């Protein structure tokens, strides 16, 4: 949870992500590996360090898609629910 929240603020190397967290750096690395496998984060080598970032095209992209999807769908629902009683469905 904390790892993802940190990355939401921008790309970071492992050391920065682990700072202040009550887990070891290797635990954080392990966690990042899982996140990477799940398609949630990507990494890039820069200045001899792996920099991690949220993968906008991965599952996070799915979230953005659903954010818009539900916003529109709920408006449609609101209109349907506010129709006069006589126009009730079915």
């Amino acid at each position, binding site marked *: *949870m*904390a*790892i*993802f*929240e940190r990355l*939401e603020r921008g790309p970071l190397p492992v050391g920065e992500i682990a700072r202040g967290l009550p887990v070891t750096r290797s635990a954080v690395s392990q*966690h990042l590996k*899982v*996140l990477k*496998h*799940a*398609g*949630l984060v990507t990494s890039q080598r820069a200045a001899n360090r792996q920099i991690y970032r949220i993968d906008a095209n*991965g*599952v*996070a*992209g*799915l*979230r953005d898609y*659903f*954010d818009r*999807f*539900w*916003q*529109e*769908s*709920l*408006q*449609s*629902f*609101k*209109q*349907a*629910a*506010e129709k006069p009683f006589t126009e*009730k*469905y*079915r």
Partner: protein
Amino acid sequence: MNAVAAIPSVRHTIIVKASREHAFDVFTRGIDTWWFRDHHIGTEPLKEVVMEPRQGGRVFERGIRGAECDWGRVLVWEPPARLVVSWGIGGDWRFDPDLSRASEYEVRFIEEAPTRTRVEFEHRHFERHGEAGQNIRDRIEKGWAKLLAAYRESAKAA
């Protein structure tokens, strides 16, 4: 992998000028009246969207020739206050019946006045679709590997 970091939920709150009984009814039994027609995954054109009005009920689409395609299940059925539905469609736009790989949405209907209902919506646990996202990537990579192999063969032959 429940230890995996969560992706933030999608949350929306809207006000509906109707009683919460009616709002709940339209959201569930009346889902077909407001669902966007182009949002479906079946191969047949969409005829209707159905939410079976009970705990464990199916949520599915029916095509114009009758083919049914599941979307999820009703996990919590508490009319007119609360509804939780699993969402088994991940990044590959296919239904996966395994609940451990499904996200879910919860809808709360809160009465502000007899004909005014606050609807709080949350779609959560997107990280559970992670595997599906991975599968797409794997397929694309395999596709490219095949293409490159074919290219290599034809380049050799030339």
